[in-house]
């Protein structure tokens, strides 16, 4: 049992491969989280425009990409689009798929945050001469982000976990590297190692999330 799943010799061999995977997972996360946040912020800001010409397409967009499984989206971009002569490469496909998928999720979270800010806040700001945009930047967004910080963090956790999807387009992130190491060593220890690395990476975020959620409950 220990030799199968926790084999020290194999661990030592696989470690550099796993570590390279971890590096790529971190790099991917550092790309897709800001991308998703930026996309989400754009969607949330657009949703503050009351025009039906913006609202309906926006709602359709968000619904579509929240319902579209990210793995299917990724495979479509990577393996489907080349049939139309469009070869984007694994990294770009992951970037676009995550931008579309997580952007829609972040967008909904941020929209809820913006809507939670009392209208009187904007009126007070406007009554002192702040423009609509200044009121948004200095008054609405800081309160909106604070209000939904636990949800943003929780979504970010999901996004980091979802980066393992990149393994299907042969991006050498943590899971992909672990599977490589597994097939090189004929032993599942690298997979276990990858799981442990994921846990060590995400556990502090999970703790932080619990604390934020407890604080939100206490503040109620």
């Amino acid at each position, binding site marked *: 049992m220990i030799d199968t799943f926790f084999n020290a010799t194999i661990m030592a061999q696989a470690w550099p491969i796993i570590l390279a995977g971890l590096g790529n997972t971190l790099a991917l996360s550092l790309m897709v989280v800001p991308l998703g946040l930026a996309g989400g912020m754009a969607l949330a800001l657009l949703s503050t425009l009351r025009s039906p010409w913006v609202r309906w397409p926006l709602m359709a967009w968000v619904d579509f990409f929240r319902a579209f499984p990210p793995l299917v989206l990724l495979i479509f971009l990577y393996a489907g689009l080349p049939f139309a002569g469009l070869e984007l490469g694994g990294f770009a496909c992951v970037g676009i798929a995550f931008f579309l998928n997580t952007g829609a999720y972040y967008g909904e979270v941020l929209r809820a945050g913006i809507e939670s800010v*009392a209208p009187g806040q904007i*009126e*007070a700001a*406007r*009554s*002192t*001469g702040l*423009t609509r945009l200044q009121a948004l930047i*200095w008054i609405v967004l800081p*309160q909106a982000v604070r209000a939904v910080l636990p949800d943003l963090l929780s979504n970010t956790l999901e996004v980091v976990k979802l980066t393992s999807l990149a393994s299907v387009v042969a991006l050498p992130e943590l899971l992909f590297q672990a599977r490589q190491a597994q097939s090189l060593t004929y032993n599942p220890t690298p997979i276990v190692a990858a799981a442990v690395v994921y846990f060590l990476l995400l556990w502090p975020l999970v703790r932080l999330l619990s604390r934020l959620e407890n604080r939100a409950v206490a503040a109620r």
Partner: protein
Amino acid sequence: MIQAKGIHKQFGALHVLKGVDLDVAERELVFIIGPSGSGKSTMLRCLNRLEVPTAGSVVVDGIDLLDPRTDLNHARQRIGMVFQSFNLYPHMTALGNVTLALRKVAGKSRAEADEIGHAALARVGLAERADHRPGQLSGGQQQRVAIARAIALEPRVMLFDEPTSALDPELVGSVLGVMRSLRESGMTMVVVSHEMGFARAAADRVLFMDDGLIVEQGPPAQIFEAPVHARTRGFISQIQRH
């Protein structure tokens, strides 16, 4: 200082203001009373264009607020407003609340804005609370910070929308005290409120509004002791019973 003529305001089918004229002279303190739904808050909010009248004209300190060419954000610096629910920014300190518009609208440096902000907080008796967040202040203190936020911009007119209605009775006095000192400094003020004692002592004129119109106006003694219209009489006797 304020010339509002023929103000109408409709929200869909609801006709809230039905042709209100209001002239306020410099250094005058005008009190607006009336039952809820009479349009008095809406009228006040038309005076800084938080509500856009459906018809009519509003000129404040020589600036036509309804002219599309008017720089509204510039004009609003001259028109301070205090709200029933304070509307302080909860994520900023008292000083931050007071200095935001000084820095972002009036273009002051942080040092200048802080100096003006401290002075404004001192004027409302809260010099020591500059670093407190709204959540750490009592309702009366919050409302005084809100007044400081408005007066820091050196407005020509101050609008008060039921400034003491959300306060516990024992906190009302401190806010009225600040309003009285503003009055003594010569500020032009329009106050929507039912603080009759304050109106009697400080107001030059009291307006009674009902159903979107000014029913009656005059000096406080006349409106409170000898109202001409039956509706005014009914309303005054009702609020005096409380």
